């Protein structure tokens, strides 16, 4: 039936081309949309995972209770009575017994590396300008084993931090906002004491504005001293051998501690939920596009089957059976759908290439485009599925036509 099917297709080139273009357009739109969205998402996820940590143990801000005070103040008394119960919050959260964690992590084969952190909200000051941001105290040697921050240093040297002496690696955006440059001295205010001078010994740029515009990294001891919190840490960032183990790992460790153990998925739940909304909308739009394309095929085949009633009658009279007649039309729908799909993939690819050269502002300064094989397989799969579904009904109707009715009535 291939022979006749192709004769039918090429006998009405305009109709066929139009149908094919419908599918091609749908597939192009799908590829382009999905390439932008998933490209952006996987870029962001990659950044989240690799610039922060797979799993992070963080200090919990604790409420002070009666029991806490009884234990530390009146340990030897059996009963203590308060006229007003004590309440309040510990001034600053810290990890209570880091050494215990280190020991445990050292003995866990899933752990590649871990690094202690101390984070604080600070004001970055230069001249009359002050900008609020985050200062992270890091241990540069173990830090680079946990995150990819080294890859994003665009000036200076990350390891220059390790010597101590109040040096800071700062985001490019933040540096620009302050009007400062490499090797300048800036002031950092942590709140209570006088601002402390830090020297800009490096600049990083990840492409994610929330990081580049607000973050600075300094040596952990310098930050502890600036905050007057010697040897305290607020977080331990952990890298595992396998990123997909993060969630399970976090749950397991979270079981037996008061401290917060979160995988990257949990600490970025809000972003991920935006992504799943995006994906939902994208799926919705894609389905809508494919329905329109499917209708093209469905319509054209329905019309064709009606126009071809006589031909079907005569084919049946010399022995072509219902299945063969069904194939005759199925082949046409599939051919148009699949060819349209392939053309769509091509144009989607061209569109993606073009978009990837554009420079557009936003959370990232360039569009991140997904060129993965998966995306393209998905595109062609959808075109095939749409054409199978939309060809099936008209083709089956053609197969069911009764030859005698057609031959008798002469139409």
């Amino acid at each position, binding site marked *: 039936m291939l*022979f*006749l099917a192709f*004769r*039918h297709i090429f*006998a009405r080139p305009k109709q066929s081309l139009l149908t094919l273009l419908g599918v091609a357009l749908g597939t192009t739109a799908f590829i382009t949309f999905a390439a932008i969205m998933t490209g952006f998402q996987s870029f962001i996820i990659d950044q989240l995972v690799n610039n922060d940590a797979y799993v992070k143990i963080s200090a919990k801000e604790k409420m002070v209770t009666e029991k806490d005070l009884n234990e530390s103040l009146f340990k030897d008394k059996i009963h203590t009575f308060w006229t007003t119960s004590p309440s309040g919050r510990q001034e600053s959260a810290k990890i209570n017994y880091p050494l215990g964690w280190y020991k445990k992590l050292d003995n866990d084969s899933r752990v590649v590396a871990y690094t202690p952190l101390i984070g604080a909200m600070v004001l970055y000051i230069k001249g009359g300008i002050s900008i609020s941001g985050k200062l992270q105290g890091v241990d540069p040697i173990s830090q680079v084993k946990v995150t990819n921050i080294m890859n994003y240093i665009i000036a200076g040297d990350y390891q220059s931090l390790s010597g101590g002496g109040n040096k800071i690696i700062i985001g490019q955006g933040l540096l620009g906002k302050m009007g400062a440059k490499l090797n300048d001295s800036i002031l950092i205010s942590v709140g209570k004491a006088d601002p402390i001078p830090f020297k800009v010994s490096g600049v990083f740029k990840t492409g994610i504005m929330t990081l580049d515009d607000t973050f600075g990294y300094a040596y952990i001891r310098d930050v502890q001293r600036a905050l007057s919190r010697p040897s305290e840490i607020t977080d331990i960032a952990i890298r595992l051998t396998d990123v997909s183990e993060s969630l399970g790992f976090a749950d397991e460790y979270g079981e037996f501690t008061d401290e917060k153990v979160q995988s990257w998925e949990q600490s970025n739940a809000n972003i991920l939920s935006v992504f799943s909304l995006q994906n939902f909308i994208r799926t919705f739009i894609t389905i809508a596009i494919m329905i329109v394309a499917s209708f093209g095929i469905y319509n054209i085949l329905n019309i064709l089957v009606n126009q071809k009633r*006589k*031909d079907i*009658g*005569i*084919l*049946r*009279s*010399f*022995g*072509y*059976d219902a299945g*063969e007649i069904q194939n005759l039309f199925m082949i046409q729908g599939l051919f148009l759908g699949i060819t349209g799909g392939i053309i769509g993939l091509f144009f989607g690819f061209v569109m993606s290439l073009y978009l990837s050269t554009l420079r557009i502002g936003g959370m990232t300064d360039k569009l991140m485009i997904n060129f993965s094989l998966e995306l393209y397989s998905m595109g062609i799969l959808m075109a095939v599925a749409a054409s199978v579904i939309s060809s099936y009904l008209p083709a089956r109707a053609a197969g069911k036509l009764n*030859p*005698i009715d057609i*031959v*008798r009535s*002469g139409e």
Partner: protein
Amino acid sequence: MIKVNNIKKSFGEPPIEVLHGISFEIPEKQFVSITGKSGSGKSTLLYSMSTLDHPTSGEVFFDGVEIASMSDKEVHEFRNLKMGFIFQFHYLLPELSALENVLMPARRTGQHTVRYQRGVELLTQFGLSNKLDRLPKQLSGGEQQRVAIARALIQEPKYVFADEPTGNLDSTNGEIVMNLLKTATRDGNTTVIYVTHDPDFAALADKRIVLKDGNLSATEF
């Protein structure tokens, strides 16, 4: 050999009987006409005995095998290999050339290359040797009907059924067509059963079946 045994055919609801129990036998290599007034049931009989339609009751045997006992697949194979149909309207496939149309039944089993030579010979014999590659719309009505006859004969069928094959043709073309069919019976191993209104064409038959209001009014040899 065809045996038709007491076939009846009704249409509609409530059923109206159109054929009231018809029986006859047709030996091998016959040229058989079916005649009768308009509405007498000629077409109904032709289709009911040729597997395209089912009789309401009664049996039809081809070479001793009852049609109703064949599977769907066997019926289609039988039609493809042993039968040819010619209708009042030619029903050529408009996308295919004359020769491609003729070879279409053979194409079902991939025999179109084997039958190619026969296709060319039939069309040549039918006076269309220089029009093999023409599309149907580039042929006259008579030429189209000749192509349709060549198509019905391509598989060297044992049985050819024709419902008013000359109905749409002038007398000259009608004669050409009838002679071609007659020749097929004489030269091949083929039985042709044709419906006609034309007494001259009916007179060409070896055996004549005459219908009157759904009954067999006469069979003549």
